[in-house]
């Protein structure tokens, strides 16, 4: 948790596919994890590794066509997929402040 300041994001590739498939954003004290797949075409959203947010760090941006999403709800507020939401991925914070995937069938990821 301490490695992810408020208003920042980080991508992860827990299944070692060679391409980040999910990312975690921090808004205030809450972490939200999303599948790295824009609801528009299901394609990756960063423009550079870990670059998922706007300049202010208060919106997620899809770098295909500039769509904006709320960090906590994943809802698209501007762009081709207006009204759609990102796919949430369940993560849990353990006692050490590490972030782990809640789904036991996936490989563990920690931040």
């Amino acid at each position, binding site marked *: 948790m301490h490695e992810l300041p408020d208003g920042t994001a980080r991508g992860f590739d827990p299944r070692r596919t060679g391409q980040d498939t999910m990312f975690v954003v921090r808004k205030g004290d809450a972490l939200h994890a999303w599948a790295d797949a824009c609801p528009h075409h299901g394609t990756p959203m960063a423009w*550079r*590794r870990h670059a998922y947010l706007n300049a202010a760090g208060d919106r997620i*941006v899809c770098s295909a066509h500039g769509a904006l999403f709320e960090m906590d709800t994943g809802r698209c507020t501007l762009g081709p997929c*207006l009204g759609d939401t990102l796919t949430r991925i369940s993560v849990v914070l353990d006692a050490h402040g590490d972030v782990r995937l809640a789904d036991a069938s996936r490989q563990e990821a920690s931040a």
Partner: protein
Amino acid sequence: MKIVGLDELVFGVDDVAACSRYLVDYGLKDAGGGRYEALDGTAVVLRHKDDPSLPPGLASGSMLRETVHGAADQATLDALESEISSDRKVTREDGVLRCVDDAGFAIAFQVTVRRPIDLPREMSNAPGAAQHRGVNALGVRVDAPVSPRTLSHAVYFVPDVDKLEAFYKRIGFRVTDRMLGAGPFMQPAGTLDHHTIFLIQTPAAMQGIEHFTFHLGGPAELMLAGSRFVEKGYQSFWGPGRHQMGSNWFWYFNSPLGCHVEYDADMDLHDASWQPRSAPMGADSSQVFLLQYREKWAPGGPPPSATTARP
């Protein structure tokens, strides 16, 4: 009306620093004043989205604020002004005409700023054909510098493709091919390039720019530039591959400019005798082949089951 191509695309962006870094890593030269130039002086211009000097933005939120077309000469500018001012306001300031097209995009025209460039082509040899690349000359070098040569084309998302096609035909553009379900590839009268604009029909809320691209010197340059861009951490979107319509090699990337950015090379040239083709939009008509980046690898070494130590 000899428009020769796109001179500039002007963006009003959210994260100027990120976009600046991106365009320099892509290979454009930071020429100062927000201009990021290709070798011939054509450019992408970056401003902050709240910059008051920009034309008003579209309701869709698109960060493209102006498309500047280059004219061959002053006579072309005069003819453009005469034609366009017949039904809308056109301003002329410091030699630049400005107006709004029939989709609401802010557009401008100027005598082209592009400089003549004299650069080699990629030279390949083939059995049966006269030799091109010289003896002892290398076809590829791992450290070869690659720079975008000229602004190639822009693709627009528009709510009424037919209406916008009619507008560009008024100023001398011709349709070279048509992607059914999307729209026309259009060529201005002053170039033989297959297209400098391509229009795609979309709902009004999506209006904006899908991508822009600069021409590179050939397919090897495109593979080198794209691979280096991936290795810097940038996100490949589609490619590398070769399109059917236009034949150009392509490699698209995500970007912080709110649209894709492409490298392209070796686009077809057409004249007035070319008969436009039509094909339904889809994977089969969009490329002849599609490849994917991989990290370098080499075969070799003992099989994993070998138990004897290597000498």
